[in-house]
């Protein structure tokens, strides 16, 4: 649905170049700081599995609905078929789909938690992501637990699932609406990148909306906007800081502080 920035995962090797400060940084120093640059606080993209490790109590995560895999309702074909693409993305990412969902604990407090991972077709929302997020919200309502969803989705919608993908925006929003109406606490965490259909649905509907520093967040992708307006984009456009300034975030939170903050919000609001 949108164009993407170049990949920014941590490169292999002893030393890496930081995309934030352009400096060469010792890889181990970054890893020790949860993949954050010690020089400039740049937050590298991390996998959903690593993120769950950072946010949840040790060994507390129980994955749910992990057997869900995409169907190919359109028999979609571009230069490769969708089913071929799915298989290669599964191999590349080591996950079956772009969302991982389940329950876990934060400082001993039970939560329902979901995460979309940019490593699988840019974290785009197809039927599996939509269904998992929906079930997560429904389960959170049933168990009366806080709901935490971390978005890392540069793709927004999953084009290869056509209109079914679009309908996931509706379905997830409906489930969130019910959950919140029943008094549930929903915290949305926006990470780099959070764009398109995910942002125009569940990711924007939280009681508390947090973001990591400098994360790219928006509706349209920067390149689409640039092509529309035919001039370069303002500095800092569509960053977490830009959203905070325009009133669409509650807080920007450093990765190292995220777990602690979540715990505090749950104490206040749950």
């Amino acid at each position, binding site marked *: 649905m949108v164009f993407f920035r170049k990949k920014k995962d941590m490169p292999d090797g002893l030393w890496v170049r930081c995309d934030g400060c352009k400096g060469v940084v010792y890889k181990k120093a970054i890893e020790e700081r949860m993949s954050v640059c010690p020089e400039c606080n740049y937050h590298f993209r991390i996998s959903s599995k690593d993120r769950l490790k950072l946010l949840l109590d040790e060994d507390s995560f129980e994955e749910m609905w992990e057997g869900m895999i995409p169907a190919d309702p359109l028999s979609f074909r571009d230069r490769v078929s969708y089913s071929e693409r799915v298989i290669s993305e599964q191999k590349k990412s080591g996950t079956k789909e772009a969302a991982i969902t389940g329950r876990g604990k934060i400082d001993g407090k039970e939560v329902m938690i979901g995460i979309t991972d940019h490593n699988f077709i840019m974290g785009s929302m197809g039927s599996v992501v939509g269904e998992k997020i929906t079930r997560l919200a429904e389960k959170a309502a049933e168990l009366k637990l806080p709901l935490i969803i971390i978005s890392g989705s540069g793709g927004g919608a999953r084009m290869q699932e056509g209109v079914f993908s*679009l309908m996931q925006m509706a379905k997830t929003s409906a489930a969130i609406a019910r959950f919140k109406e029943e008094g549930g606490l929903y915290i949305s965490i926006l990470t780099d990148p959070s764009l398109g259909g995910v942002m125009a649905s569940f990711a924007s509907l939280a009681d508390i909306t947090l973001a990591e520093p400098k994360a790219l967040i928006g509706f349209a992708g920067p390149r689409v906007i640039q092509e529309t307006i035919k001039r370069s984009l303002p500095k800092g456009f569509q960053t977490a800081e830009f959203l905070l300034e325009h009133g669409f975030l509650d807080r920007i939170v450093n990765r190292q502080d995220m777990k602690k903050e979540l715990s505090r919000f749950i104490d206040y609001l749950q």
Partner: protein
Amino acid sequence: MSEKSIIELENLIVEIEHRIEDLENASSKDSFDRSSEINCLKETKEKLQVKMCNQLTPYDIVKLARHPLRPLSSDYITLIVEDFIELHGDKRFGDDRAIICGLGRIGQEKVLIIGQQKGKSTKERIACNFGMPNPEGYRKALQKMELAEKFHLPIITLIDTPGANPDVGAEERGQAHAIAENIYKMFRLKTPIINIVIGEGGSGGALGIGIGDKFAILEYAYYSVISPEGCAAILWKNSENAPEAAQSLKLTAKDLLAFGIVDDVIPEPLVGAHKDPKLMANTLKKYIMKYLNELKAIPINTLIENRYNRYRSLGKYSEE
């Protein structure tokens, strides 16, 4: 079928129409009977029209949905709605001309109409931003929908947008947030909602006024997660592959009916709504009246429950 030959066919049809008109004018002046020639031309015209309709590719349909003469929300409001009172302004930022809202009567029914509007003249098109709404447009729509809920008026939304506006101002004012908020709130509005795609159903921009209890699409309208051009640019790395993308995306009314996404495909006059806007408006009105009668009979809590379940069931996946 290439796009060019569809245009050639359409031009040929227009030529025949002019010829028929000339003959009829001549006959009315000199009373000379040309009916056999006229009938013959009419027959040829109809054959060509049927041929054209049968040959339409998905991308031809996208072109028809964008046809410069295609009736717009404002046309249907003029043709169907009596005593229309437009309501402007989102009471927060501005008045987005890409979405028209207002009270009116369709038959005996008092309703709120919300229509995405592209504009006719160049000046209008620019004012309407070519039918690409800004956040204030979605917020205006929501504000009026809440008004309709309070006073128990059913809501009719006419969808016709290439997509929500992708520009700097729209991002600054929270385009994603505005659309998300509308989707979310429309699920809980305690009044019947009917959504009809009359032209382009462009992704999240369409969905922002597109949640409801009945969903229909005109025969040559389309509804898609992304424009064929955008999809081609990403997956084929070339927007010229838009015809293939349109094929792959399964975005036509027929596809949507087969997928169970829409309740009805509303038939258009041969070769498209622009050929006979009045006939089109009448057909549209009949569907709206039918839906209003059906929905009025359903208790409001059941309606909201059904609305949830309708979208809850959409999605295709397998589970190991």
